[in-house]
C-alpha cells in the first residue's frame, strides 16, 4: 500500500523534454502537429505530413525521417503499422469461415488464413473441410499467438502466417502490452534473457514473457504437459523472475525507453542489486529511483 502525492507518475520525462524542442526543425527532429518541416524544393510527401500551400507541415507529433527525397514523420505514440516480415504477438478476436481475425494493436484486425497455419504434426496437405471444423481447436477465441506478417493488402489489411515451428499458440506465460514504437524492429524477436526467462517482443507492442517448453528438453507431448506444470508450480523462483521481467518492461514503457533485452536486463539487475522485492517494483518512488540510476549508468 502506498500513496504518493508525487505527480511525476502522470508525466513521463519524455513529454517534459519534448516541450523544449524548438519548432524550427532541423534534420531528424521532433515536430508537433502543424509544425513546418522544411521548405526545400522537390520533396516527396510521406506519412504524417501534409502540404499546406507551399509549406510542408506535420500532422502528427513525432520524429522527422528522411530517406532521400521522401520526408515522413514517425509518430511517437501511435497504433502499430505493419510491415512485411514483422514478428507480432496477437490475440484471436473472432473466427469466421476459414480465417481467424487477430487483434494486433493495429488500425484494423489482421487476418490469419487457415491455409497459413501449420497443421499439428507438421503435415503438408491441402486444408480439408475437417480442418475447418476444428479451427477452434487450433486457436480459440482470445488465444494469444505469435505470427509473422506475410503480406499487406492494398487497403492496409494485414495477412499473417504461422508457417514455422517457432510461431503458434502462446502458453505458460504473461502477456503485457507496451507502446509499439518502443520495440525496435530487429532480426531477432525471440530472446532468452540471461535470467532464464524467454520473451517474444512483438513489433506491434505486444510482449509475451514465458518459460520455454523446449528448455526442459522434452517433446511436445500431452503426457508431459501435466508433469511439467507440476514442476512449474513448485518453481516459485522462476515465476518471480518472470514477474520481475514483466515489471521491468512496465517501467521501461512508463518512462518511454526503448525495450530491448539489454535495457530490460539493466532494470532487472538494478532491482536485484538493490534488493527490491518484486511487489515493490512498481511503486512510484522506487521506479523514479531506478530510472535515475539507470539513466546515469547508461544514456538510453
Amino acid at each position, binding site marked *: 500500500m502506498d500513496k504518493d502525492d508525487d505527480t511525476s507518475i502522470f508525466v513521463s520525462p519524455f513529454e517534459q523534454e519534448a516541450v523544449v524542442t524548438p519548432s524550427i526543425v532541423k534534420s531528424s527532429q521532433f515536430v508537433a502537429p502543424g509544425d513546418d518541416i522544411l521548405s526545400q524544393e522537390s520533396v516527396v510527401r510521406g506519412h504524417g505530413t501534409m502540404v499546406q500551400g507551399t509549406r510542408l507541415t506535420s500532422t502528427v507529433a513525432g520524429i522527422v525521417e528522411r530517406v532521400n527525397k521522401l520526408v515522413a514523420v514517425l509518430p511517437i505514440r501511435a497504433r502499430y503499422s505493419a510491415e512485411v516480415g514483422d514478428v507480432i504477438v496477437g490475440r484471436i478476436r473472432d*473466427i*469466421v*469461415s476459414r480465417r481467424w481475425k487477430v487483434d494486433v494493436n493495429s488500425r484494423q484486425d489482421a487476418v490469419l488464413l487457415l491455409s497459413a497455419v501449420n497443421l499439428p504434426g507438421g503435415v503438408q496437405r491441402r486444408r480439408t*473441410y475437417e480442418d475447418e*471444423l476444428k479451427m477452434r481447436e487450433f486457436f480459440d477465441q482470445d488465444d494469444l499467438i505469435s505470427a509473422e506478417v506475410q503480406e499487406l493488402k492494398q487497403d492496409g489489411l494485414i495477412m499473417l502466417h504461422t508457417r514455422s515451428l517457432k510461431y503458434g499458440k502462446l502458453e505458460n506465460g504473461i502477456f503485457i502490452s507496451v507502446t509499439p514504437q518502443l520495440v525496435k524492429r530487429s532480426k531477432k524477436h525471440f530472446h532468452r534473457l540471461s535470467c532464464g526467462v524467454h520473451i517474444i517482443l512483438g513489433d506491434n507492442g505486444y510482449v509475451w514473457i514465458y518459460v520455454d517448453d523446449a528448455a526442459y528438453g522434452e517433446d511436445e507431448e500431452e503426457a508431459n504437459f501435466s508433469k511439467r506444470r507440476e514442476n512449474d508450480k513448485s518453481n516459485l523462483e522462476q515465476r518471480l523472475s518472470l514477474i520481475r521481467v514483466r515489471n521491468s518492461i512496465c517501467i521501461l514503457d512508463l518512462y518511454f525507453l526503448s525495450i530491448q533485452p539489454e535495457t530490460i536486463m539493466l532494470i532487472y539487475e538494478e532491482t536485484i542489486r538493490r534488493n527490491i522485492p518484486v511487489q515493490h517494483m512498481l511503486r512510484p518512488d522506487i521506479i523514479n529511483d531506478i530510472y535515475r540510476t539507470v539513466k546515469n549508468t547508461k544514456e538510453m
Partner: protein
Amino acid sequence: MQHSTNRATAMFAVPGMELSEQGNFSIGTGCYCLHQRVYASLWGRVSFQETGEANSLRIDIQPRTRSQRSTCVPTVGDEVIGKVLKVTWRAVVVEIFAIQEKLLCYTFRGVVRLPDVATTSSDKIDLHNCFRPGDIIRAQVVSLGDPQAYYLSTSRSCDGVIYAMSSADPNQRI
C-alpha cells in the same frame, strides 16, 4: 443436508440432491460429480441402469416432462430433424425443431453446407435439386458452428429429406 443422506436410492431427485458416493456409479444425464460425490442437476426421476460391467450402475435422471416439448440443446453427434428455410448455392439453412424424435420448445438455426451434403462428389451437386424450402430433413450435428448456426451433415445414408410437400419435386435421397 439432512434430506440427502437417507435418500441415496431415492426415486425422485431435486437439483443439488446428493445421489450417492462416487464408486461404482457412472454419470449419466442430469447428474454431475463434485468432490467424489454424485449430485443431481435436474428435477426428475432417478434411474439406475446396469452398464454391463460388474457392479457398475449408471445413474440417469429422467427430467419431469410437463409438456410434450423438451428443452434440450443440440450437441455434436445428435441426430436432428429440421425444416429447410432457405437454399443457396453453397448451403442449406435449416430450422431444427427436433432432436432424436424429441420435439423442442425452441427452434435452432442449422446449416448444411455443400461439402456436408453427401460423402461423394460433393462439388457436383446442385443443392437446388436436392432441397426445397419447406422440406423436412434429417441430419447430424457435426459442429457447434458459428454463433449464428449449428453445422449439420446429411452425408450418412439415413439422413436427407424425409418429407416433402410437393410430389413433383425430384426428392432425391442422398
